[in-house]
């Protein structure tokens, strides 16, 4: 299983490289390292979100509320910044992560304590969180002149040649790698997805593991709330509307099985970057941006067909719990 998973990441990396080369044939500038780093920076937020979603999907759950969580946290953080421009930005980032984690915990608690299917819970909170964004802001926007200079410039500052945003993504990737492969929580997350029944016998509290996975996805969504509003210098109710499916798409393309238990940090990152390369290449090769949606749709279908071939139908339907659940 391990070598197969490795295989898939190699193939995905090769597909991305091929894509870059194809574009570079016509436009050599696209493959230049500095441009590729720009692509990475542009899609850092998607990479971070995909990692949080991966943790949830691994436990046979799904978090459809991430984009709404992001919008809500982004709005609250931007409003805090507008009201108290003197507050240091790192404090705001902590605030974002705390709010995001709290919203994630709300999802997780409903899944854990009431055993409501995750898709139902997060479908509900998807609309609730976005509605709450409207309520706290009264429908108003927070834009550039309301934000403090430090709030906007922090993620753009360059450290060792890379913007802070990219560094945050790299640190998140590293943290998730350690979490998933070197800690008992990571093991439990995989175990809860592969075989919930066996996990219970092994002394793993499957419900609690799901709860923690939701806290995790909420926390990264909160972090991205700050990153998003400070990057696009606007906080509104419409922020990241519909983005939740892009996040799931990144995971699916990255080989994270929707049936749970299968997937890796590298896969999720590459899945997000695959979407990133497509999104960045289209304007370069002069294809109307209106093509992007259809192309990423095609990519998802292709990815899931290829994944299914690899898994030989091992997966279960996400809507099904284990027979003994």
């Amino acid at each position: 299983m391990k070598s197969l998973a490795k295989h898939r990441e190699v193939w995905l990396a090769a597909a991305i490289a091929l894509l870059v080369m194809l574009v570079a044939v016509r436009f050599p500038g696209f493959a230049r390292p500095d441009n590729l780093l720009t692509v990475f920076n542009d899609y850092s937020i998607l990479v971070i979100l995909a990692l949080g979603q991966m943790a949830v999907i691994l436990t046979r759950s799904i978090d459809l509320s991430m984009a709404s969580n992001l919008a809500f946290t982004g709005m609250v953080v931007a409003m805090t910044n507008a009201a108290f421009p003197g507050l240091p930005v790192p404090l705001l980032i902590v605030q974002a992560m705390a709010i995001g984690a709290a919203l994630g915990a709300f999802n997780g608690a409903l899944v854990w304590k009431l055993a409501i299917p995750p898709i139902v819970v997060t479908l509900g909170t998807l609309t609730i969180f976005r509605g709450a964004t409207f309520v706290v802001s009264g429908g108003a926007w927070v834009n550039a002149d309301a934000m403090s200079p430090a709030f906007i410039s922090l993620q753009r500052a360059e450290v060792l040649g890379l913007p802070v945003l990219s560094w945050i993504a790299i640190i998140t990737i590293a943290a998730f790698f350690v979490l998933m492969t070197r800690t008992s929580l990571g093991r439990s997350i995989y175990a809860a997805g592969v075989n919930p029944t066996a996990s219970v016998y092994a002394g793993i509290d499957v419900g609690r593991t799901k709860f923690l996975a939701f806290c995790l996805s909420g926390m990264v969504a909160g972090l991205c709330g700050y990153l998003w509003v400070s990057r696009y210098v606007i906080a509104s109710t419409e922020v990241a509307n519909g983005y939740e499916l892009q996040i799931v798409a990144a995971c699916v393309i990255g080989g994270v099985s929707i049936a749970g238990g299968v997937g890796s940090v590298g896969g999720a990152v590459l899945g997000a970057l695959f979407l990133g390369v497509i999104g960045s290449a289209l304007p370069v090769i002069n294809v109307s941006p209106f093509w992007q949606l259809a192309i990423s749709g095609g990519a998802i279908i292709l990815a899931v067909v290829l994944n299914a071939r690899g898994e030989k139908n091992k997966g279960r339907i996400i809507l099904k719990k284990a027979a003994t659940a």
Partner: protein
Amino acid sequence: MTTIDRHIPDRLDSPLRSALFSWEALLVLVAVAIFIVNSLASPYFLNAWSISDLTFNFVEKGLIALAMALLIIAGEIDLSVAAIIALASTAMGMAMQAGLDTPGLVIVGLAVGLACGAFNGLLVTRLGLPSIVVTIGTMSLFRGIAFIVLGDEAYRGYPQSFAYFGQGYVWWVVSFEIVLFAVMAVVFWFLLHRTVFGRTVFTIGNNPVAAAFSGIRVERVKFILFCLTGLMAGVASVLLTSRLGSTRPSIAQGYELEVITMVVLGGVSILGGSGSIVGVVLAAVIMGLVTFGLGLLNVPGIVMSIAIGMLLITVIALPILWQRLKKARTV
């Protein structure tokens, strides 16, 4: 984890008792309560025309929910229905520009819906893929095609006679849309609760393996259900396009989640295997009542969505809490 405690009672509850304590009865109560609150809250609510207008809030989504209920009972899901509306509507716009008249447009809309459903069905049943992922993909694909065709343009100028489906009235305040919804609700009720096909849908949802061993062609039934859902999305597309009189690629954005909310609110288990058409119809009416009532009070749409989201979670959570409370008392 929860444990199953299915015990077999000594005797069944009387039909009256089980009807009184059913999910549908709870939904009726909720609907009546909201109806009363609406009439008290706004002086404009209790009026034949208001109530007729109210139905436009849920009919298009409700039509899809009827078919989606069967699909979810069978253990699958279709997230691409709103995108099918967009693609079918775009196809109708193209057909209109090519000079087709109303009957042709309707056929194009329905055919595109059916074709999209069949495409989903083929991917799920032939290739054995999980439907949630497939339909997230086709959702982007179908709407993406609509965006490729239209970009930031829109189709306008549908023929006069085409407007009847979404704007016409059969008699007095009774719109064509609500009549169609009522007819389709009866058709789907009959299909699910009174035919062999309906029984197989439940069987598949409860245990696909046992269903296959009992000689049910599981894949074929699922394929038919995907086609049916696509077709109903096509019907909804005809109604919505006719009602709005124009097509934009962003038409019906977010409908898929509202349709699924309706189905789940209607008492259909998202895990498959149980549910009823009566429940789904009631849930559609409730959602129409909530959004229309809040609209009369000038509550913005986005705040209404909070109400819908909370309704969804509360209505699912309450029976679970109730069961737990009851158990705690008996132990």
